[in-house]
């Protein structure tokens, strides 16, 4: 493995460990709140709107697949198709952030305001933090697309590292969706 490639991969691994620790801390806090609460969701919260979280989940899953496709097509030397898939991934990423804003609107319309207690704090706070990372990820996707436009196989490790970050955000969302919205 070339040194630059090894360095890039190592740096991304350390970054993902750091990112994972941030979200693990949040989930640990969530576990404490939830296990200590007499009722979850609290009695004053009727129903959490699930439409947009479901749509967000499908979009982010699709974006993970398109990101994977972009990288594997680039590895095969099919640069044009790879570029198309990376553009589609950016579109999916933007759509995800869009659906998150609609989720926050729905929460508000359902009477779940940010200051409605710790349950609402978690719904808003955790999705805000995840969305912030998604914005960073979108920056990464733009970088990925620009890298693919250079049509240079030496840069494939960069594409692969952006892909790893994007999958990481998808996995975090999967935990959030399951933990916060489904169960």
């Amino acid at each position, binding site marked *: 493995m070339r*040194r630059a490639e090894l*360095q890039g991969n190592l740096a991304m691994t*350390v970054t993902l460990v750091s990112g994972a620790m*941030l*979200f693990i801390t*949040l989930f640990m*806090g969530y576990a404490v709140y939830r296990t200590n609460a007499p009722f979850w969701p609290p009695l004053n919260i009727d129903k959490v709107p699930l439409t947009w979280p479901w749509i967000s989940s499908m979009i982010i899953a699709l974006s993970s697949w398109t990101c994977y496709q972009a990288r594997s097509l680039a590895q095969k030397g099919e640069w044009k198709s790879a570029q198309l898939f990376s553009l589609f991934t950016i579109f999916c990423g933007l759509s995800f952030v869009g659906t998150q804003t609609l989720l926050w609107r729905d929460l508000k319309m359902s009477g779940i305001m940010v200051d409605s207690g*710790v349950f609402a*704090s978690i719904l808003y706070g955790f999705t805000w*933090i995840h969305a912030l990372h998604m914005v960073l990820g979108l920056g990464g996707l733009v970088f990925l697309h620009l890298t693919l436009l250079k049509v240079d196989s030496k840069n494939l490790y960069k594409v692969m590292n952006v892909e790893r970050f994007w999958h990481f955000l998808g996995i975090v969302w999967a935990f959030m969706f399951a933990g916060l919205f489904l169960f």
Partner: protein
Amino acid sequence: MSGGFNEIHEAPTTFWSKYIVSYDHKVIAKQFLWYAIFFLGVGGMMALMIRWTLAYPGQPFPIIGKLLLPSTGGVIPPDTYAMLFTLHGTIMIFYAITPLLIGAFGNYCIPLMIGARDMAFPLLNMLSFWFAALSGLILLASLFLPLGGAAGGWTSYPTLSTLIGSPGDGQTLWCLAIFVLGISSTMGAVNYITTVITLRAPGMGYFDMPLTVWGLWLTAILNAIFVPVLGAGVMLLLMDRMFGTTFFLAGASATAGSGDPVLFQHVFWIFGHPEVYILILPAWGIVSDLLSFFSRKPAFGAKATAMSMTAVTILSTLVYGHHMFTTQMSPLLTQSFMTLTMTISIPSAIFFANWLGTIWKGSIRFDSPMLFSLGVVFVFGLGGLTGLHLGTVTTDLYLHDTYFVVGHFHYTMAASVLLGGYAGIYFWFPKMFGRMMNEMMAKIHFWGTMIPLNGIFFGMLMVGYGGMHRRIYNPFVYDSLKRLIPINEMITISAILMGLFQIVFVVNFLYSLWKGKKAPSNPWNVGTLEWTIPSPPVHHNYDEIPVVKCGPHELGNPNLKNGRDFQYQTEELVKG
């Protein structure tokens, strides 16, 4: 490994690219050094103001008191006192010691000591400094807000740090500053870890690395793992303060549904205990190397020292609960945390014994870096031993939140790390700036620091054992504490003395920068890689990447015939 980022880059030519947004690890190290010295001054002045209040409450702080606090005639009022001890802790830990040990020495030493031309990611390195600078600016700006800076303690426990306890914007800016600094630390950690793994010179195995690099590398690993934990905590605290969430609000302060203030303590200490080692591991590494260099002997049990430091790093992640014995923790948990805490004594004792083994029967040279290193051995010994009292549940219940705790953590985190930092500055100054520091002034600085420092921190242990609470504004109003007033005065006088002797350091540092004797390439006669190149090194460090053939502590080898008592790491080990 081939290709990659270890090639020679052209030296920058403009002032802007050379000194401001430099990618050169040596320049970034110096930026961090100046940053740390500035904040050491600010944090030190705050310490003097705190100590003045405790010894002479109600009296104006001398000389600059009326200038800083015109509305009270120079007297430090209680709310300002709370702000001072909060920001003194914050500044010294995050803005003075961290940038000195990790930012300055990490940046300067890692590439030079492993034979690399720069860090793996120079741009990230530069950004790391400027994020730290932004964070420092945010924190300093908070001092000028109408209600002043943060005043909830350096630990910022809710509810002291929520809008109920700290209504002004100072605490909000504190959270923001710490978060931004966390980004800087994480960037640094990514860089350090990658650099050590990928850019070691050919022939340099992990155990051929100087122990300084070991300490910095382990610190970077802890930083990468645990700084985000604090990041998560302060982010939630920031949301509580700015957006109305209730993560850490409880009872009457939470209007709808309760959060959990104690949860912040858990999050803080999951980060906070490793943070102690984040600060001290680089100092341990530096001292482990310097004791060997100035005893003219190989480091005793160098591999065991490296492994012990690694063991401490791992164990440091499992002991945070000993900071929270008094939070109604289950006895099963307190006993578990106590046992794990005691376990840390084993690796600590191993490398401490190795330090003693290193200097045992050595031809000790009492140059200033060695004096400061021996100082670390002494104060860390005291700090470590007093830690046993606080790691044991029964004694901690009595001593918790007293000045004994303050004395203990100052011995470990302040005294050890500060003396280790000074040892490093005196040792690498010739390499950094190409000039020698004045040795006589350095020795005056050492004794002028070492003696009052023990007056301060041992005094704190004594008043703490006598029952003085750590956050008292005026001990004179409590009958039970009146007998401790003379000791409090002794601590304050010691602090003033120590502060005055730091002027000797500043004068020596500034004078030597311009007028110091020109430094040869290897003034201390040691064999690690940085001493094989001129002082100061050229922009790209090494014309040819060195090939390492022996360890970093090859001193006093009786088989050496060339008139030297040390070998460079680039030389074959001389055997009999």
